[in-house]
Structures are given as C-alpha cells and as structure tokens.
C-alpha cells in the first residue's frame, strides 16, 4: 500500500484524524466547482444577471442596477443555498447509511426514510395548509424517525442484519407511499398540486426562512457525523470484527442511524424527496478519496451539495421557461448510475 495518509493529532485532546492525502485537494476542488455553479445559478433566470454582477451584489459592492439586490439576495441566493445545504445533508446521510448497512446500494430514499418524512410533511401541507414553515422539518424528522425505528425493530432478529434492514425498508416505503397517495387523492387540488411539486424534490421558491430553519440541524449533525467517522470505519469491518475491537455495535449503529435519519428528515422537509443523492455522493466520494470515513464524510457532503446545486441549475435550463424540480433530475440521472453500480458491484 503506497497510499498517502494525512494524520492530524492534537496533543491536548485525544482527537486525531487520519485522512487520505487526496482529501483536502478534492474537497477544495469540489467547493470551487460548487461556488462557480452557484454563481451561474444565481445569474440564471427570466432576468439574467452577469456573473460578475452576481458576485458584486453578494459581496455588497457598488453596482449599476439597484434591482439586482432584490433579485439576487431575496429571490435567488437563498434558493441555491438551500439546494447546497440539502445536498450536504443527503450526502452525509447516505454515507452513514451505506456505512452501517455495509451495503453500497443503500440510500435514504430506497429504504423508506424519505417516504416517512414526506408522509409527515405532506399530511401537514394537505390537512393544515396554514402551518408555519419551521414545523415542516420537525414533522418530517418525526416521520423519518418513525420509519427508521420501525425498520430497526422489524429487521431485528437477535441483532440487526443489513440485508433485512433494506428489505424491510422497501416494505415500509410501500406503506408510506400508499398513505401519501391517499393524501394526494383526497386533498384539495391546490394544496395537492403544491404537495406534488414539493414531493418531487424542488428548491423552487425557497427563502431565507428555509435556510434558517435547515441550518441548525446541519450545524449540530454534521460535526456529530464527522466525530463518529471512526466508529463507521470499525462497523464497516463487519459486526464480529467490530465487536472484537471493542465496539458496542448496536448502540453505535443506532446512534449513527439516528444521525442519518435526522439529516435526511431535515433535508426532505426543506426540499422534498431528492432521491439518489444519498446514493451517488458517497460513491463518487469513495472513488476520489477512498473508503475511510474521516475523509469520505466531508467529501460526500461537498459532492452532495454540488450535485443538488447542479441538478437545480439543470432543471431550470433544460426546458425553460418550464422548470423541472431538481429531484426529477437526480432521479433521472441517479437511477441509471444506481444500476451501473449494481452491475459493477457483482465482481466483488
């Protein structure tokens, strides 16, 4: 093995990290690409704004056209920020999920966590249209949590098995989806239409309010995920090895699952079900920085953010002026990628 490692140790505390040497450069590159895409995205629309003016407006510099302030700061910037944050959440959520199920094909969407979150949120939209925004992440988290707990309980048979976790998840997904259908069939047509757009996974019309209600979740959960990276590495070796190394497997898996669920729930609550980001981001991340989670988690986070920002941009450009929700784009690109992974994976 001639892989380069970057080891970060602190003398005072017991914290130490062992990163793949490629990680910092990769993360920086992803960040640059994402920022560029965000600037283009903010400039894009019915009222195009040149990239330089976008930058100036965001930085608060002098510009000629006073309309730009409103368009950029009020309408477009929060939207693209939401896209980014949601992508970060989903990317990390998927990474954790793949880590604990030891299945490279796990995704919060496929095992019903997104559907649970959606069900709770759609119920709220359809039954109580006047509900305040901050209630959505909470209810979505609740829905995701219920599904996750059910998955865990139902898949339990003298310990939790990764295979059963996934199959049980698919079953629960069907129930949640059926209940969502029920809401859509009986709801009043306008709130149903709104719920549908939301369900498809869209950052349309997202405002600073959304940014503010999503941010606290990420501020708490992202560092938490990062701190548990080492446990994920251990779990990845298999339950028996992990136990042998002194891990309390079930506790750690439970806590990690909770983190993953909370991240997915908060993201779904803000932008609906953007599928396959949680699947793709960790994969591309792994190809770039290898499988150790200290480097993988931030890389997958950046990758997820980039994917959603790009998907949103693409969704608006493809059939302009009609806007496709970014969730449709990620599904259309993600499903084939998923199948590719499935095929490639058989050789292992």
């Amino acid at each position, binding site marked *: 093995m001639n892989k380069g490692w970057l080891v970060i140790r602190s003398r005072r505390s017991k914290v130490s990290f062992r990163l793949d040497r490629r990680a910092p450069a990769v993360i920086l590159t992803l960040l640059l690409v994402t920022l560029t895409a965000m600037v283009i995205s903010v400039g894009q629309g019915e009222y195009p704004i040149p990239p330089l003016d976008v930058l100036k407006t965001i930085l608060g510099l002098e510009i000629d056209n006073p309309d730009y302030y409103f368009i950029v700061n009020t309408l477009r910037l929060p939207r693209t920020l939401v896209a980014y944050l949601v992508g970060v959440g989903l990317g990390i959520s998927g990474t954790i999920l793949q880590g604990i199920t030891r299945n490279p094909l796990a995704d919060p969407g496929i095992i019903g966590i997104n559907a649970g979150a959606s069900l709770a949120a759609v119920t709220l939209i359809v039954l109580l249209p006047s509900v305040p925004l901050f209630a959505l992440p909470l209810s979505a988290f609740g829905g995701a949590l219920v599904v996750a707990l059910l998955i865990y309980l139902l898949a339990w048979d003298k310990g939790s098995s990764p295979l059963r976790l996934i199959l049980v998840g*698919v079953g629960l997904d069907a*129930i949640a989806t059926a*209940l969502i259908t029920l809401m859509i069939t009986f709801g009043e047509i306008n709130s149903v239409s709104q719920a549908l757009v939301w369900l498809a996974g869209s950052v349309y019309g997202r405002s600073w309010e959304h940014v503010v209600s999503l941010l606290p979740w990420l501020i708490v959960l992202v560092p938490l995920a990062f701190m548990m990276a080492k446990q994920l590495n251990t779990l990845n070796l298999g339950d028996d090895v992990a136990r042998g190394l002194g891990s309390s497997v079930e506790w750690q898996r439970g806590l990690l699952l909770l983190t993953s669920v909370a991240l997915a729930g908060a993201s779904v609550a803000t932008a609906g079900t953007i599928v396959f980001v949680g699947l793709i981001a960790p994969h591309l991340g792994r190809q770039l920085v290898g499988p150790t989670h200290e480097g993988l988690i931030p890389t997958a986070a950046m990758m997820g953010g980039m994917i959603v920002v790009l998907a949103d941009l693409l969704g608006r450009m493809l059939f302009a002026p009609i806007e496709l929700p970014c969730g449709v784009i990620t*599904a259309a690109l993600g499903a084939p990628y998923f199948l590719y992974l499935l095929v490639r994976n058989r050789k292992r």
Partner: protein
Amino acid sequence: MRKSASPSVRGFIQPRSSPFIGLILGLLILILCLVASVAYGAADISFSTIYAALTSFDGSTEQLIIRTVRLPRSLIAMLVGAALAVAGAILQGLTRNPLADPSILGLQSGAALAVVVAVFLFGASSLNTYAGFAFLGTGVAAVLVYFFASLGRGGLTPLNLTIVGAAFTYLAGSLTTAILIVSQRTLDEIRFWLAGSVAGRDFTLFLQVLPYIVVGLVVAFALGRQITTLNLGEDVAKGLGQRTAWVKAIAALAVVLLVGSSVAVAGPIWFIGLVVPHIVRFFIGVDYRWVLPYAAIVGAILLLIADIGARLLIAPQELPVGVMTAIVGAPFFIYLARSKVTR
C-alpha cells in the same frame, strides 16, 4: 388445526387428494363475494332486485345502478385481482423468488408512466390506448428490471430484484411526477386513476380488457407444468428437456398482458400479486398447474373483499383500493422478508 377443519374445508387443506373440490369451493366463495360486492353500496338494494336486474331488466333506477355501476365495478375488481395474482405467481415461480410481485418489481410503475406519457403527449383518453401503452410500459419495465437484477451480485436474488425494482419505481415515479407537474390537465385527468381504483368503471371498459386478460390467463394456465419444472431450477428444467428460454419468453408475455391490462383499467394496485401465491402455495403446494388457477380465484376474491372494505371503511367517502392493498400487503412483504430471505 387440520383435525378440527370441517369436511367442507378439507378440500383446501388436503389438496393432493382432490384439488378440484377446492377449486369449486373457491368458485362458490368467489360468487358469494361477487354478490356481496354488488349488494353493498350507498343505495340499499335487495337481493331480489339484483336478481331481477340480471334476469328481467325493467329499467328502474335501482336496477340501473346494479347494471351500470355496481356490476361492472365488481366484475373489473374480480378480473384485476385474478390477473395480478396469476402474474405474481408466474413471477415468483419463474424467478424462484418469494418477494417477486408486479408492483415491487416496478412493472406497474412502468405501465403507469407509459399511460401518463400517453395522456400528456397524445391526449389519450380511451381505455384501448391506455391499455396499449400500459402493455408497452410493463414490457419495458419487465425487461429492464429482470436484466439488471440478473447482472447484480449473486444473480436474481431477492435483494437484487427488490432493489432494482425499487430503483426503477423511483425513476418511473419521478418522471411521472415531472409530467404531472408540467401539466395540471394530466394531473386532474389521472390522479384518481393513479391511486389504483375500480370505482366508476363501466361495462364497456370491462369488455375492453376482458379479451386481454382472458388470453393472459389461458396462456398462463397452459404453462403450469413448465413453470413447475422451472421452479426446480433452470438447470433441472434444461436437464428435463425444457426449452427454458421459450417458456420464459411466453410466461413473460402472459405477465405483460395481465399486468398491463389490469393497470390500464384499474391503475397500479399493490401487493395482490405478492400475497396471493403465498396463500395458495400454503394450501396446495408448488404444482403450478394448480397454483395458477387457484391464484386466479383467490386473487379475485381478495380484491373483491378489499374493494368492499375500501367502500365501507370511511363511508360515504371511499378509499382507492390500491391504497388498501398496499397497507395490508406491505406488512406481509416485511414478514416474508424476515422469514423467507436468508443469505
């Protein structure tokens, strides 16, 4: 339990001696369910009126309700239940996979996508065009899911089939959603259909899908022996001189006919194809010559009951029957995943 069974039920429980009696018994139950399904509803209608409506039609409102609303709906529920159950049985036999089901494999999502595309692009509104596109969608979905699942690690394992089916369902579902967002006209025309329901279908619809489903069923029944052999494993079947590729192709054709037409007339209805074959095999074993006809009857009974339940539960409103079957069927799927799938 066996000892306490009454003589009339024994036909079900000791099948190998007389599976035929069970079949006749099933038909009787089916007829009972059919009568119940026609009799239950918003308007209270007596059995004598139902009988009269069928034998000596006099044009009264009640008889009209029976002939134009209740009867077609019940007949369609029966047909769809039978079609999906047989399709599920074939899929499970063919893939030797306890979790196979048209809805889990994404066949119905594929059919639904094709129909939505047809409504959106060509303004399709007749059931015949619905059916054509539904066949197309089912076929494409079947080929894709089967192909990719067999490429996964370990071949057509329950995990691979389920997970590819789920991915395909997501893809088709999100494309469907995309269309519904772009066009509210399509949404309004099709949202109730998308939930899976047999309400408001008339007699012409029944007659339109009848030939497809009958052909599908007949082809399926004719394949009973071959599917039994295939269920022993492909190598065994080949060893016994079966041309497995042909059998699979024809069986797939039957599945496409059955699923496509049932989706076209009733929308996606979940899990009937998963649950019924398990119930049937529990009673009469794995001889598909018997499994398939039994599945048809039990599927019809089950969907009739589910439809009655959908009407009664929140009367005077009613639930889409597809939602009912999903809520009842999914726990069964989870139970199977727990008990039948081991690595």
